[in-house]
């Protein structure tokens, strides 16, 4: 092998992957407007402390607003909360809602970013993901805090 060939390939690899990751992280679609929270139950502290008692840290900004990327709810949540049937209509990669510990989360934007793979999130779209989440991250305050950034409402009783 010519002496400079592996060096060249290595340099290309570094530049290529650097550019690829940079573009990946800067190719974020504009977030969809948040659901009309005026129809949600009064939860003035919902974004600072949820029912799990964790501080809300939105996943993408930590200090900003949560950024659900799926379309706004087709029908506004009722004052008593988001029903299971409403959650079940968002069971796809394009719109993924899940009920976890009594709260409803829009996890659409998190699907491609979940470090544990897309399958784990896709598996709880449209249904109650409490068991899976608690089994995996229930004791991890940071993961719980991360999750709270995706909250869009509470589940109907």
């Amino acid at each position, binding site marked *: *092998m010519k*002496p*400079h*060939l*592996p*060096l060249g*390939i*290595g*340099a290309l*690899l*570094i530049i290529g*992957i*650097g550019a*690829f*990751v*940079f573009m*990946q*992280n*800067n190719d974020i679609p504009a977030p969809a407007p948040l659901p009309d929270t005026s129809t949600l139950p009064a939860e003035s502290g919902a974004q600072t402390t949820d029912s799990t008692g964790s501080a809300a840290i939105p*996943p*993408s*900004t*930590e200090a900003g607003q949560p950024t659900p990327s799926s379309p706004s709810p087709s029908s506004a949540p009722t004052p008593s909360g988001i029903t299971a049937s409403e959650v079940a209509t968002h069971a796809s990669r394009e719109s993924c809602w899940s009920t976890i510990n009594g709260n409803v989360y829009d996890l659409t934007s998190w699907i491609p*970013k979940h*470090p*544990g*793979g897309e399958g784990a999130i896709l598996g709880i779209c449209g249904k109650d993901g409490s068991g899976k989440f608690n089994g995996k991250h229930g004791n*991890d305050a*940071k*993961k719980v*805090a*991360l999750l709270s950034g995706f909250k869009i409402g509470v589940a109907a009783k």
Partner: protein
Amino acid sequence: MPLQTIGYHILRFGIAAMFLWFGFSQLFNGIEWVSWVPEWAVNMLSLPPAMIVLLNGALEVVLGSLLALGLFVRPAALLLGIHLLIITVEIGATAIGVRDFGLTCATFALALLAPAKEKKNTVVS
């Protein structure tokens, strides 16, 4: 070129690409990695988790670049192997942990396969 040499280069470029991707990802989008920083690391280093992510990303980019360029492959792979071993132990026996265990073994294998004394781009046989 002997097959062992080709295999070595594939291993080296593959491992390098992996560490470069994760390293750059932590540098460009560190906030998504903050939740993975273990408590003991924060306590031990007395640094904010976001800073630890950036430092970790920089380390992986630097060492990954050395692998990609074929420079100091043995020490770089050894350091990355130890680094990945700590992560693997931290994650535990989950799907991710088992996958990382395989990658740890591959990284240590690369350290063993690399020539002890680097001749310019001369490897293995």
